[in-house]
């Protein structure tokens, strides 16, 4: 039982909890406005969007149950916005847009919009959202291609004001929509995002009208303090020390790294008292291809790691991030500089950094550390000419894989893990719109690493081309480097990709295949990696308690 004098909350603890709950609910409400109003190729990328409320410094006060890689990077984007548009320069109804990875963005398709929340003349905070656009220009539809510079990845938008006092700037909009594919859809998304932020600002305005701006401002700060204290308490329980790990990525679309190449990521976590530093010194230089992470993405991974390490119940916001210091050498894979391409830093590097961080911290918390996961967002894209329907088609989806096992049970099978959480698309929907037949969507037997608890199983998805022009691109990981086991558990099985040609030959494919081509009847087989196991397999008797329904 806490005594009152131990509390870190100066506000009335009832009002605090009422408002705090309200702020998180507002983020969910923003999301519902977005999903209802948006034109949905956005949603066909499976609700790839996130909403947050920020204080006047651009720090996150509350956020939705959305996409971790978006949310951790939000304060970086906000601070980039505020550097260009100082806080006293905002009017109600202003909207600033940005997607620049070199100014707090994650990758170009993620469009961040920020709208002020006023208390009279003063800016008390911001409503912010980050939405993945299916296209932001660049060299290929979908803006996710393998290139060697960010300029080829699409339209780069440093913070610009797109609306002033509620009026959208037509000049800006005209320029923007002249540079993206299917501009009509994007205009719908753009309007929906303005409405989404507007709703957030309006609802916080209601709270200000009721409790007063000073009280709400104070609760903004205390909400962060509250999360910070929960993290401090969790970190204090971990033994002090420095813990290191190193891993290699498969490739960047230009080169492959079998374990002694340059795609090396290194971390030294120093845990001291109730704080952490994650030092990535020794990590390889930024790559030619787009697996580079801007600092905002690297920090996102460290924040996710901290929240997860703290037990998963800490209300996420910037307060939770204060105990973490991120040190990443400039010009490296984890803090790249212009003009390095970054589009898959978000999908590949961010997830591998989480695995790396847990591998490093394992000696300090051998029970709590999770084993490695499948290490990617699993993006596969299809397109081409649909003879039967007489039209072009484009289809993008993400594929799940094995999650690492933890001390409490086997890893999730075939789910999205760590930094992303998008849904799959129904086979029945895909077949109704594309000239492909999906012949298998299954768990890969034996792909989870062995252990007292086995790792989650990877996914096998096999599809057959029903036309002569089915082109595909793959953005995956872990064909060369399996997910590590934890606490004595075994590694997961690696991923594999191959095409089966009309003559029956099997053609192995890289995890980063820019453009492949299938003719009628040919097969593409994708198998994502399994998660690592937890604990030594000898202790496997505990598997009998029914948690492992899929063994």
């Amino acid at each position, binding site marked *: 039982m806490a005594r*009152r004098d131990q509390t870190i909350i100066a506000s009335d603890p*009832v009002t605090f909890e009422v408002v705090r709950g309200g702020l998180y609910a507002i983020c969910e409400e923003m999301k519902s406005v977005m999903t209802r109003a948006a034109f949905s190729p956005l949603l066909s990328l499976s609700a790839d969007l996130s909403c947050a409320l920020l204080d006047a410094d651009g720090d996150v006060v509350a956020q939705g149950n959305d996409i971790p890689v978006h949310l951790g990077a939000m304060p970086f984007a906000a601070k980039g916005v505020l550097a260009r548009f100082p806080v006293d320069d905002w009017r109600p109804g202003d909207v600033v847009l940005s997607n620049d990875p070199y100014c707090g963005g994650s990758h170009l398709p993620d469009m961040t919009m920020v709208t002020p929340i006023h208390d009279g003349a003063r800016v008390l905070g911001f409503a912010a959202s980050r939405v993945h656009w299916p296209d932001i220009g660049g060299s290929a539809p979908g803006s996710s291609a393998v290139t060697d510079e960010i300029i080829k990845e699409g339209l780069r938008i440093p913070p610009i004001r797109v609306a002033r006092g509620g009026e959208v700037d037509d000049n800006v909009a005209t320029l923007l929509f002249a540079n993206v594919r299917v501009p009509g859809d994007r205009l719908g998304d753009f309007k929906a995002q303005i409405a989404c932020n507007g709703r957030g600002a309006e609802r916080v305005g209601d709270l200000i009208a009721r409790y007063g701006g000073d009280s709400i401002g104070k609760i903004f700060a205390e909400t962060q303090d509250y999360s910070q204290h929960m993290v401090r308490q969790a970190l204090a329980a971990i033994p002090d020390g420095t813990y290191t790990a190193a891993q290699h990525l498969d490739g960047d679309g230009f080169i492959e790294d079998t374990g002694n190449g340059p795609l090396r990521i290194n971390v030294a976590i120093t845990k001291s008292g109730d704080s952490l530093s994650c030092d990535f010194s020794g990590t390889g230089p930024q790559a030619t291809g787009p697996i580079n992470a801007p600092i905002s993405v690297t920090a996102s991974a460290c924040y996710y790691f901290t929240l997860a390490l703290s037990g998963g119940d800490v209300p996420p916001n910037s307060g939770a991030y204060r105990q973490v210091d991120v040190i990443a050498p400039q010009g490296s894979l984890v803090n790249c500089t212009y003009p390095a391409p970054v589009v898959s830093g978000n999908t590949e590097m961010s997830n591998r950094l989480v695995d790396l961080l847990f591998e490093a911290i394992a000696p300090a918390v051998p029970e709590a550390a999770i084993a490695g996961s499948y290490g990617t967002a699993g993006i596969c894209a299809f397109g081409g000419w649909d003879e039967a329907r007489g039209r072009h088609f484009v289809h993008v989806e993400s594929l799940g894989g094995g999650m690492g096992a933890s001390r409490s049970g086997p890893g999730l099978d075939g789910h*999205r893990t760590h930094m992303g959480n998008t849904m799959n698309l129904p086979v029945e929907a895909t077949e109704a719109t594309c000239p492909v037949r999906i012949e298998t969507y299954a768990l890969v037997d034996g792909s989870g690493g062995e252990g007292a608890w086995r790792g989650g199983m990877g996914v096998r998805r096999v599809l057959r081309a029903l036309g002569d022009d089915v082109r595909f691109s793959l953005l995956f990981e872990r064909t060369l480097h399996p997910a590590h086991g934890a606490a004595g558990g075994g590694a997961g099985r690696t991923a594999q990709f191959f095409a089966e040609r009309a003559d029956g030959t099997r053609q192995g494919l890289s995890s980063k295949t820019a453009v492949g081509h299938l003719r009628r009847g040919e097969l593409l087989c994708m198998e994502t990696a399994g998660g690592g196991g937890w604990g030594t397999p000898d202790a496997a008797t505990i598997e009998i308690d029914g948690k492992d329904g899929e063994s």
Partner: protein
Amino acid sequence: MAHTTDSRDANDVALGTDVGGTFTDILALDLKGGRILSSAKVLSTPQDPSNAAVAGVDRLTEGTPWRAGAVFHGTTVGTNTLIQGRAALTTLVTTEGFRDVLALRRQARPRLYDLEAVVSPPLVPRERRLEVRQRMAPDGAVTVPLEADEIARVVAELEELSVESVAICLLHAYANDDHEKALGEAIGKALPDAFVSLSSDVCREFREFERTSTVTVNAYIGPPVRDYLVRFREQLAERAIPRLSIVKSNGGLTSAANAEKYPVHLIESGPAAGVIAAAALGASEGMEDLIAFDMGGTTAKVGVVVGGQPRLSTEFHASRFVDGRDVGGYPIKSPVIDLIEIGAGGGSIARLDAFGVLKVGPESAGAEPGPACYGRGGVSPTVTDAHVALGHISADGFGSEDLDIQPGPARAAIESQVAGPLGWTVERSAWGVLTLANANMAEMVRLATLRRGLDPRDFTLVAFGGAGPLHATEIAREVAVPRVVVPPYPGLFSAIGTVLGDIRHDLVQTLLKRTDELERADVQAAFAGLEERARKLLAEEDLAPGHGAPVLDRYADLRFEGQMFEITLVLEGPEALAADALDATFRGAYVRDYGYDLPEHAVELVNLRLVATVPIWDGGWPTTGADNPSKHRQAARRRKRQVFHPDGRAFDIDVIPRYTLSAGERIDGPAIVEDFGATIRILDGQVAEVRASGTLVIEG
């Protein structure tokens, strides 16, 4: 029992029963006179809920001059079977390559930062998920035929396994059910005792995970639900009550015979009845837009009625929360009254967390030991204890003979767990508990309205359940709902609702086609198929004589090609079925909802829906004139009671027994109205008016 002295025949009296966690409510409704004849509350019997219902039937029918012709039943047996895992040994038969669909789900995990994340385990373990070699295309064309020896192989495998129940879900079976039917027939022949469910019968919609999940839940709970209904019917038959009607998740009624085949449609049966009652009450009081707010001991539920119709959702996730943790649950694709439920009730426990922040729920003191004020050993302060500490409810007004309300233990629990550590008074702490509980429930109302694009200021809140009327007025103020309505017998409201629904069947057929590639004949043929299915279901309805023809309403779900969510449109008249009419109606609706059209985008038809209803009750809100209030008026005393402000100041408030009120009477707040089993709080500045029906309408 002098049956002959009453002119009512058996078809004139119906019994409505609603099974709750603690009590089973039952009432007798005179269908001709529109009057509630009697009612009773009996303790629920979770082992077999029909025992309590039958006990209630006996209690009500003992010595009465009338005979009941039907029992209407809101049941939680489906949900309970699912939660308690006392279900059938189930096998799933599915298309080759897809047996893991149930495990893969939609691949998103429910909790973002949880390293020990779990998702609801598949109801059928992997070794009991059998694959069958066959395949269809999205248009229903067979690409791999289902051979006779393949059927034989599957049947032989099933015979090897111990099988009580079989779910069959083949890819694209929504477009062509031939293979599912062939398998179903063969399995039914070989295993005549098995409960066999076809996805094309239970859920004829595309999206394989949701369809597989739905048919699997149907098979999983099928045998226990069937056994329950059979037992219940037998007991009613022994009492010469011929008919049993079950409330479905969509708020409609169906015969026990249909309910046995589609138990998955009963999952939200219990909560649906309350929303039906709200719609019926609203109709008789001239209110079309309502928020049904039901609060009991452990949970609070909110449903919405728009334009007199309960708002439905097309998907529901059963068993989504385990110990307050989101585990994803089991999706069920079937129209279900759109309900929001949270673990907030009179028994919700208040506590301070490690940082001195107050939390209320979701842990509940339950019925045992219950709130501290019950004096049964409960030491954790609950929402009910907060009301007792503040004087909102008292020993002399609680309306239950079984419970003795004790303020001492209530105050002691608040003092030791909240007030002491905070350095606050008990009264301030108790207000804090209520403020937080109300804030949580107000958020549910926002979720049910604002987040669905509805403005709470246009609504009336209908409060019922044991604790609903205690909280409704404050929640309404919090979310700017201008009016609160408390029906007569708020504790029996859901039981009343079981009797007031229509027979209703919702049928759906996926027809994925662009409007520019669609023929009117495709639409007509699909609707003809739906009507045929509706006829078969209605033939099993065992309707009492004298009912009119069913009303058939047609709907279509459309979207812009490439979108993932559809808009449902009403199709009125035969010309609405034409492809260009569908296209134009959709674009009009889209502009109305979102403000713009996308002229270069093709429109896609996704589903056709048919709703077949047969009204069986059109008598408006039943009267409750069994008791004549005037005879109590002299005996009943209005009195004053001490209650507390948040600052600890005490003041006296009028406490009015509800049965002393007469039509047209006005009560100025603040005041407390005590009813049997419920307390109504009228706040300062509010005015309550008593309607002729006995309904209390509170404004301000």
